[in-house]
């Protein structure tokens, strides 16, 4: 089997396994990443929500916030896991699409390499 084929399969396997990345932190009671707290957590940590942070924090409305379906960010782990896998697959597809496009625009055929000034 070609190496790239194996790597594609590897990406798919990683996508299917990705819910481990929300399941383990939940089981081990780990919270947000450092410096990635929401306004409520921030209030618990330092006693207030910094004014600038409060203003800018929600400047962007992501389509799938935190890799969950919109409005269902607080659903159960099972539901979140499905959303997580969907996010992984969508993300991989977009990365591959953008990567191929950028690569096509930037790459040159091997025969022209070295002829470049």
């Amino acid at each position: 089997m070609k190496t790239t084929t194996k790597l594609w399969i590897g990406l798919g396997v990683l996508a299917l396994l990705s819910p481990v990345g929300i399941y383990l932190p939940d089981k081990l009671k780990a919270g947000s990443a450092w410096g990635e707290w929401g306004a409520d957590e921030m209030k618990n940590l330092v006693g207030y929500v910094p004014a600038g942070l409060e203003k800018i924090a929600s400047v962007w409305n992501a389509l799938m916030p935190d890799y969950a379906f919109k409005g269902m960010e607080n659903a159960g782990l099972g539901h979140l896991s499905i959303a997580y896998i969907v996010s992984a697959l969508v993300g991989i597809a977009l990365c591959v699409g953008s990567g191929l496009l950028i690569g096509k625009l930037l790459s040159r055929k091997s025969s022209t390499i070295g002829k470049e000034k």
Partner: protein
Amino acid sequence: MHIPDGYLGPATCAAGFAVMAPLWAFASRKVKKTLRAKQVPLLAIAAAFAFVIMLFNVPIPGGTTGHAVGGVLAAILLGPWAACIAVSVALVIQALLFGDGGITAVGANCFNMAFVLPFVGYGVYRLISGSSPVTSVRRVVAAGIAGYIGLVVASLCAGIEFGLQPIFHHTASGQALYCPYGLKIAISAMVGEHLLVFGWVELIATALVIKFLQKQEPALLQPETEVRI
């Protein structure tokens, strides 16, 4: 390490974009000269790998979470400039579509994870691997250590960016406007957790894939020599 919107003040956000814009432009020129058509799928795979590996949040029990980035692997396979582009693609998609990392902080996040990380990692990899054969154990070790150090140095940069905020921006009464933690706390938290836990994830992921490719297709591990042909 994805700095969200609201944690960095306007000056740091602007600086992030101001630094990254020429780096992206230079990376494009550099990649245009070196990337072979055959390597294009690898660039796409590298971006996708960075995206998906960042989903694997590793918990510190009762504490925070973190993850690997996969950027050093991309740098070893495609060179650091192509890695910069691959990881930037993943970070921009994460910010736009999934709100992971702020829109205003894309420049800073790309600087940490798509520039500092692959370049530091690539330097360490070249330094340790030296002229050893591509299938040597030394290259696997070099790749692992490179991943570890690359991620830790990137976390140091994020820590500094967080930690500068209360110095730059605060109200008359001393309340922070953006990230409330200063340099000492931000750097020890960011660097500490990456040294202790998350760096090892990058180490293992990078070393494992390099080990796999040594067996599978060692030619992929010597991009420079191939380009010269």
